[in-house]
């Protein structure tokens, strides 16, 4: 059967990989190509590059580095952030990205998903969803790039999941906001609820603090992949050791 995937997420700004430092902006952690190669060599199954500045600055993703990554990388990668139109996606995919991920722009105009799926095929179109529990229900948030801009999108998460897959999303990344940054583990309850209605691959995001959290989310929910950033960037978790743990726990992974 198909292996569960481990997906490091790299935040990109100005052609470099950066790391958010609370209240103090961002610090440079290395070159995009160099880090992409390092994660590939460590056994990452896929990479996500998130252009953190594109959306807040109201511009499209800067595709110049996408080609450099595509030239060196022989595993799939997805580009997120700043993709607002079919033309933006075309530029990114033509440069060599395998998938593009849309979030806030799809909430502004859900037909963007239909247009992207029709032009490029559903397998290229990932929808990112930021969601948290409010009054006993899960609600979608948008413009989550900064605390100041974050606001509810007036949609129920489970409804939005059904809608985006009907419109042609080929994969969903569910970022569970109340767990994001806590390092206390993934939000199993929400992931299980979404899994119930989600017929396309589902990627868990938000909350990983140690290797056991990744094992637990695979053992405890039906997600296809786990995305994480800081545990990998801070060397809290090494991918080969993580995969050994998963394999020993009876979880199918690519070794």
């Amino acid at each position, binding site marked *: *059967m*198909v*292996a*569960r*995937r481990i997906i490091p997420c790299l935040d990109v700004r100005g052609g470099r990989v950066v790391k958010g430092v609370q209240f103090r902006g961002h610090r440079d952690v290395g070159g995009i190509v160099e880090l992409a190669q390092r994660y*590939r060599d460590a056994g990452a*199954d896929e990479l996500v590059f998130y252009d953190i500045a594109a959306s807040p600055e109201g511009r499209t993703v800067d595709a110049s580095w996408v*080609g450099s990554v*595509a*030239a060196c990388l*022989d*595993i*799939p990668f997805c580009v997120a952030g700043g993709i607002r139109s079919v033309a933006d*996606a*075309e530029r990114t*995919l*033509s*440069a*060599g*990205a*395998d998938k593009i991920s849309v979030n806030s722009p799809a909430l502004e105009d859900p037909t963007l998903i239909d247009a992207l799926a029709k*032009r*490029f*095929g*559903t*397998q*290229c179109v990932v929808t990112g969803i930021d969601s948290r529990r409010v009054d006993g229900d899960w609600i979608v948030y948008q413009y989550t790039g900064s605390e100041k801009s974050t606001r509810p999108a007036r949609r129920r998460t489970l409804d939005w999941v059904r809608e985006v897959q009907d419109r042609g999303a*080929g*994969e969903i990344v569910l970022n569970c906001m109340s767990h994001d940054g806590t390092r206390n583990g993934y939000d199993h309850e929400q992931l299980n609820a979404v*899994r*119930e209605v*989600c*017929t*396309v*691959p*589902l990627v868990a995001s938000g909350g990983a603090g140690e290797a056991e959290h990744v094992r637990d989310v695979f053992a405890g929910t*039906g997600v*296809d*992949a786990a995305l994480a950033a800081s545990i990998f960037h801070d060397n809290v978790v090494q991918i080969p050791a993580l995969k050994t743990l998963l394999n020993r726990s009876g979880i199918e992974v*690519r*070794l």
Partner: protein
Amino acid sequence: MIDVAIVDTGGANIASVRYALARLGRSGTLVSNPEDLAGASHIILPGVGAAGEAMKRLHASGMADALRNCGQPVLGICLGLQLLCARSEEDGLDCLGVVPGSAQKLQATARRPVPHMGWNTVDFSQKSRLLKGVPTAARFYFVHSYAVPLMDCTTGSTDYGETFSSVIEHRNFFGTQFHPERSSTQGATVLANFMELS
């Protein structure tokens, strides 16, 4: 002078195939003119997107006939493998028909989302020329919603609830349902094996 011809099937992501060839020291050129196939040593039929759109393009350019009659090794990747078959249930149409078989929609279940996306194993025959030197447990990257059932020319099969053709080899026609260009070291081996065929 064209080294490897990459046939234009209308998909946006040809770059990853070109880069994978470059890593092997080969050069891929996107072609939409049948005449451009003549000088190429190898032909790659990539495919991302819908079968109907791709076949329309291949017919319009005259490429469909040129491919059926060409003598060089042809590698269909993903949708490209499906286009080599007789038919596709996607858009309900005839494909190139150089091998029999018909691409059918994978059925989504609670445990098996569709598209089938990720790294899966291939159960392959030792006579496979594409998978020569590949370890048995190797995984390859798949992303597709349609698949071709097992046929006489199937040399590799993959299980995703149902078992489908993940590698086919017939005369000068080869196909992989997975993406060798995105399947790390093992994928590079498959591409290198293909480039050694003549």
